[in-house]
């Protein structure tokens, strides 16, 4: 059996509104990542990608609430832990999280060295500051950041540099899993490449053992992650390897996403670009059947009758659609012609 660093079984979390309405933003999500692998999560704005990232950390604060499911990191179940316990024992050394605007996470009045000390002291109050400094300098150098960054204030660093600094700080304790939530979408292409290189270095040098990468930029996911998972309205609708997902998407929604890819390569020019019409459903009262039915080109009345389970096909892949895989493939090839 392969070594699973992170395993999630049937995780459901909800937002509770002022009017006591439940919004299940993450609905029965199961996933697992093996040692040394990375998983990409794709989907449009509001599909629950970021909520899933927050839920995976086990760090819940109102209005987000844990409902059910298990999160197992390297054999240790962290679901149901109290927020305080999670902060002390899980964040930083089990799971690290990089938000989209990580660069705004730094207090402008403190030097970078202080943030590193904060992270380490929170987990080990007896740590020696001199040792911390030495370790931080070594780690920064290894990740391609000049040691002088440690003595700067955040305002003295550029956007890309700040983002890389945040990544270096959050992985200083060698967390098992790193969750990167759109870490490069606020950066230009060159800084984005540096961030991606750094994430890859972290994996190669063994500072992190698995990574979850969230973005809506599919060419990026294709180049960064081993597997891709597509989320829609709080549910996983398809998963497979990056190559399978980009070149042979099965679910109509994944197919819509993949057809929005634009890259500066010769093959792109002749492609039809497709947009998925409409907006995602309101999760206060999600549709009874397939959640994508209202926007789906291939919808039939049965789609709306009952919830559709995840179905395994081609041995390792899974999808959530009422149509058979063979049927969808035929329809797509007919469409392309």
């Amino acid at each position, binding site marked *: 059996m392969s070594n699973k660093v992170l395993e999630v079984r049937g995780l459901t979390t909800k937002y509770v509104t002022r009017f006591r309405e439940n919004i299940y933003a993450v609905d029965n999500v199961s996933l697992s990542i093996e040692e040394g692998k990375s998983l990409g999560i794709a989907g449009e704005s509001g599909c629950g990608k970021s909520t899933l990232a927050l839920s995976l950390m086990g760090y819940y604060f109102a209005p987000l609430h844990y409902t059910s499911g298990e999160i197992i990191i390297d054999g240790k179940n962290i679901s149901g832990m109290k927020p305080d316990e999670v902060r002390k024992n899980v964040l930083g050394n089990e799971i690290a999280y990089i938000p989209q605007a990580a660069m705004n996470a730094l207090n402008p009045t403190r030097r970078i060295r202080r943030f590193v000390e904060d992270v380490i002291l929170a987990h080990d109050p007896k740590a020696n500051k001199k040792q911390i400094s030495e370790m931080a300098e070594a780690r920064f150098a290894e990740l391609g950041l000049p040691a002088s960054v440690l003595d700067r204030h955040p305002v003295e660093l550029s956007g890309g540099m700040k983002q890389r600094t945040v990544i270096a700080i959050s992985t200083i304790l060698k967390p098992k899993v790193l969750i990167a939530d759109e870490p490069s979408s606020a950066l230009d*292409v060159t800084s984005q490449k540096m961030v991606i*290189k750094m994430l890859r270095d972290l994996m190669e040098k063994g500072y992190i053992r698995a990574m979850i990468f969230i973005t809506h930029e599919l*060419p990026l996911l294709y180049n960064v992650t081993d597997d891709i998972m597509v989320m829609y309205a709080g549910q996983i609708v398809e998963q497979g390897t990056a190559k399978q997902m980009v070149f042979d998407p099965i679910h109509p929604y994944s197919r819509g996403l993949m057809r*929005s*890819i*634009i890259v500066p390569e*010769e093959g792109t020019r002749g492609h039809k670009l*497709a*947009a998925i*019409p409409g907006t995602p459903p309101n999760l206060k009262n999600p549709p009874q059947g397939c959640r994508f039915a209202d926007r789906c080109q291939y919808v039939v009345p049965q789609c709306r009758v009952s919830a559709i389970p995840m179905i395994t096909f081609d041995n390792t892949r899974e999808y959530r659609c009422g149509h058979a895989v063979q049927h969808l493939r035929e329809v797509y090839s007919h469409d392309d012609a």
Partner: protein
Amino acid sequence: MTMHDACAVDQHLTLAPKRIGDLENRPLCLSGKGVTKVFGTGAKQTVAVDHVDFAFHEGELVSIVGESGSGKTTLAKMLLGLISVTQGEICFQGKPRDISTSRKKREYWKGIQAIFQDPFSAFNVFNKIDTVLLDCIHMTGGRGLPHAKKVEMMEEACCFVNLKYAELTNKYPFELSGGQMQRLMIARVFLLKPRILVADEPTSMIDACSRATILDMLLQLRDEIGMTILFITHDIGLAYYISDSVYIMEHGKIVEQGTADEVILTPKAPYTKRLISDVPKIYEPWDLTTV
């Protein structure tokens, strides 16, 4: 497909954009020679745009590509007449542009309009959507039209951008989502029918799935109304997909220009080569060692 059919077909499928071949034979719509913008004076002087020459033809879709800080937006603002030109001359439809008085400026703005990056700050929060659209009709001389005709025009504009006019009346712009607001911006442009549209990163705040819809609408504006579109972006893939010709800007200078195919598939300037190599691709491996 006419504009009315477009709303009947809910699924917005784009055909790969048509490239126009006879660019040289088309009349010039907007051109500039030695256009320069300098901010500050003395030691603190910054040259944001440095002796830039350009010529945009009627009905052409031109992209200006560059990194943050390369002077793309400053150039756009100069073209729009929002900031002054330090040096150089801009010609509009063959004649030197004259925007010395506010009356002349208003006249100029009937011919050139813009869509900006952030749809959330593009609208006056106190104006309802009807007012926004009515203003556009009034601006183009439709003040005397009967109300029913105005409503019909607004319905047509909303239809063009796949919004339902009946659902928008009595709403404020901030009640819409980002993608819807950006489409409302395009509905304004549709009513104003300017000769030139400056689209400054219109898709960068919108997720990849809604991006196709916006691009599709820009292409329709070009094909059906014959608008010249100036598309400013940092995404070279997007520029390649949509445009007829591409200008690459680095530190205020244009380092390379030509048709989209020439510039992207056979880049000559080292800066263009670097920009292309920095973008993740699907068919070729992405070389991470060159950072």
